[in-house]
């Protein structure tokens, strides 16, 4: 089960990319912004793509009554996420090492993947909830209040994934390098599971 265990060790290690690269990226382009404004969402906080992007996004958003983009200390997620990711990397590597020493079965690999997936889905849910709050919990004294054709106040929740036109802005929200490394890492643990299963089958047959 050596090959599978090595994959199981490499996979979770790829999650370490989240400490160095953004998880997600949201770009806002408009006629007046040929160089779009952008924010990179890291597990430790939100950063501007260019030096003053956050300040400029906040400056624009104040017209429509959106809250300012949260600082790391304003959201518990940015404190907890790094520990969760660190814990999952450690757990994954330990499982891999134990697998290498034949102390645990390959089924643990899938177990890690399922746990990580649940956490991932929870994370996405949480992220989406924040986007919803950010985009719809507006200051009642906002300078510009736009209503939808049906008379309800327009909200400005950025898309979780993909493109959306919001007033004069074209908003694109996509995973970034950290997320891709995480996806690949997680897939490697699934591959580890199947390779482990195959290797286990071979051992049985011989």
């Amino acid at each position, binding site marked *: 089960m050596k090959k599978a265990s090595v994959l199981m060790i490499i996979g979770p290690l790829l999650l370490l990319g989240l400490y160095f690269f953004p998880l997600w990226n949201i770009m806002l382009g408009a006629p007046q912004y040929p160089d779009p404004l952008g924010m990179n969402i890291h597990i430790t906080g939100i950063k501007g793509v260019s030096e003053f992007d956050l300040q400029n996004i906040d400056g624009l958003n104040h017209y429509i009554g959106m809250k300012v983009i949260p600082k790391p200390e304003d959201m518990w997620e940015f404190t907890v996420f790094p520990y969760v990711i660190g814990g999952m990397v450690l757990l994954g590597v330990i499982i891999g090492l134990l697998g290498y020493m034949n102390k645990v079965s390959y089924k643990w690999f899938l177990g890690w993947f399922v746990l990580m997936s649940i956490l991932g889905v929870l994370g996405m849910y949480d992220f989406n909830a924040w986007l919803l709050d950010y985009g719809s919990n507006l200051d009642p004294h906002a*300078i510009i209040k736009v209503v939808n054709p049906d008379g309800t106040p327009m909200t400005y929740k950025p898309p979780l994934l993909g493109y959306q036109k919001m007033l004069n802005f074209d908003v694109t929200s996509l995973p970034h390098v950290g997320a891709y490394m995480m996806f690949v890492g997680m897939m490697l643990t699934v591959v580890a599971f199947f390779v482990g299963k195959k290797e286990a089958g071979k051992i049985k047959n011989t």
Partner: protein
Amino acid sequence: MKKIKYSMLAFLGLVMVFTSCNDSGKKSSGALASNNAEKVYVAPGEQDEFYAFMSGGYSGNLTVYGLPSGRMFKEIPVFSQFPTSGYGYSEETKPMLNTSFGFVPWDDSHHPDISQTNGELDGRWIFINGNNTPRIARISLTTFETEEIIEVPNSAGNHSSSFITENTEYVVAGTRFSVPVPQRDMPINEYKGNFKGALSFISVDPEDGRMDLKFQIMMPGFNYDLSHPGRGKSHGWFFFTTYNTEEANSLLEVNASQNDKDFIAAINWKKIEEYVNNGGGTIMPANYAHNVYRDENHTATSTMKKEVLTVDPTKVPGAVYFLPTPKSPHGCDVDPTGNYIIGNGKLSADLTVHSFDKMLAAIEGKKFDGEAYGIPILKFEDVLAGTVKSGGLGPLHTEFDGEGNAYTTFFISSEVVMWKLGTWEVIDRKPTYYSVGHLMIPGGNSRKPFGKYVVAMNKITKDRYLPTGPELEHSAQLYDISGDKMELIYDFPTHGEPHYAAGIPAELIAPKSQKIYKLAENEHPYAVTTPDGAKVVREGKEVHVYMSMIRSHFTPDNIEGIKVGDKVYFHITNHEQDFDVPHGFAMIGANNSELLIMPGQTKSLVWEPKQEGVWPFYCTDFCSALHQEMQGYVRVSPANSNIDLSWSLGE
């Protein structure tokens, strides 16, 4: 009678023939025109290939254009007050216009020249001379703002300026009018033999561009008209045209046109530099302003310098020679190889070309033809490389395309003539509309010209554009020189009177053009870097308002406790950190100007309220959808009132 009728018919027939001829002529020029339209057409959203920096002449400023489109991008205030931005009105920039004559709010700007490294344009700074009150300015090509102005003492009519040596070691400023040195009360008609012509060598710091007047060469009292540096093999030399070697002091148009030949003065500045570095020269008392603007605190300071190092050229053997040059030469141009020095004899039909190699040989062989005030005159025949028999009249200036061709403007015959270096044959000539002065090829005054376009700067506009009363803008014309012959492809009006221009490929400066000033790096003593730092402070009759501005409000926007007779300083910091979001500030009744404040910048305006009341101020730059709401009020109470200072926003 019948005869007459027939002849009339015949005449009509002739007219028709001519008309149809004209029609077909127009058609072919129409096809040509559409081809030319493509050459100058820069589609919406596209950018030009070259920057062209055109001097403003009597506007005192420098304008920035794109080539080939001829679109104007910016007017950079240099020597003239500029109410558009507050330059020369704001407290920070008033010192820029300080001189030994006090505050001089205007000048006549002439010859822009871009900094060079190894004889090639490097796009760090551009220099320009103030002709009237002699000054040299240095403008940053990252902020496109004037950073430094140095006054030139002992000089008058600072015209053979501001040309730089090939590594920007010096920016050189020569006097057009000779004057008594030092200035003193004396009869004008004792000019001859008594007046001096100062040629100033201003060193440029290679790191920050700071200028320092290193030495002045005290030449005989001629008029030093134009100059250019040697380059390549002639690097280390500088060449100045002279006129009025007659030393006339009145009716110069006649009296200064008597000598068949004036001179080109060849100055071995390396030799003189060595001489002064070894302690040579005489320090003389002087009084001239050195004004420096710093981005860090957005503020200029003016320092009066009190002495200058002068050099008597006869004390440095082998440093200065005169090259006889016919007919009151105007432009003095050096080709990209550095071998040919062209004297544009403005009262003649011909161009005189001197050879640097022959000049060195003549000096070596001591082939002198007398001397003037102790300066050896070389024999004309021994330095002459050739004469361009142009067939034109009134040559003024020459530029080069880097492919062995030269282009000379002819003021009187109103044309640009293209000729070949070495063979001196005329290749092409094209009319200009009208009476061309300078011309410019991007990099045409360097070792490496970008010979794609010639811009002719015409002195007379007349009917080229829709009329605008007696006063017209000047007119530039663009020629395509990428083919074997020149082709006139475009006309565009220019602001002020461009005397010379400097062009550079856009790619050399556009990428480093600054977008904002960083608020975090603002060192202005009155800056407020966060809105809660805004305050109003009274110091006797002076009131300092520390104000910030961001879309779309001022902090504070209500101020009370100001009294009639106060001197109110508005120190306003733009808190935007986004490209192209300036805010303006205008105060009713202000006796100076508005302020236009760039993101991260602080500027100060003085306002002296004279009447009680509640007086508004507002943002002048349409900054946002709520620009019209960007306003505030100042309450002005009687001088003896006891209303306390107070200020607020949103209360």
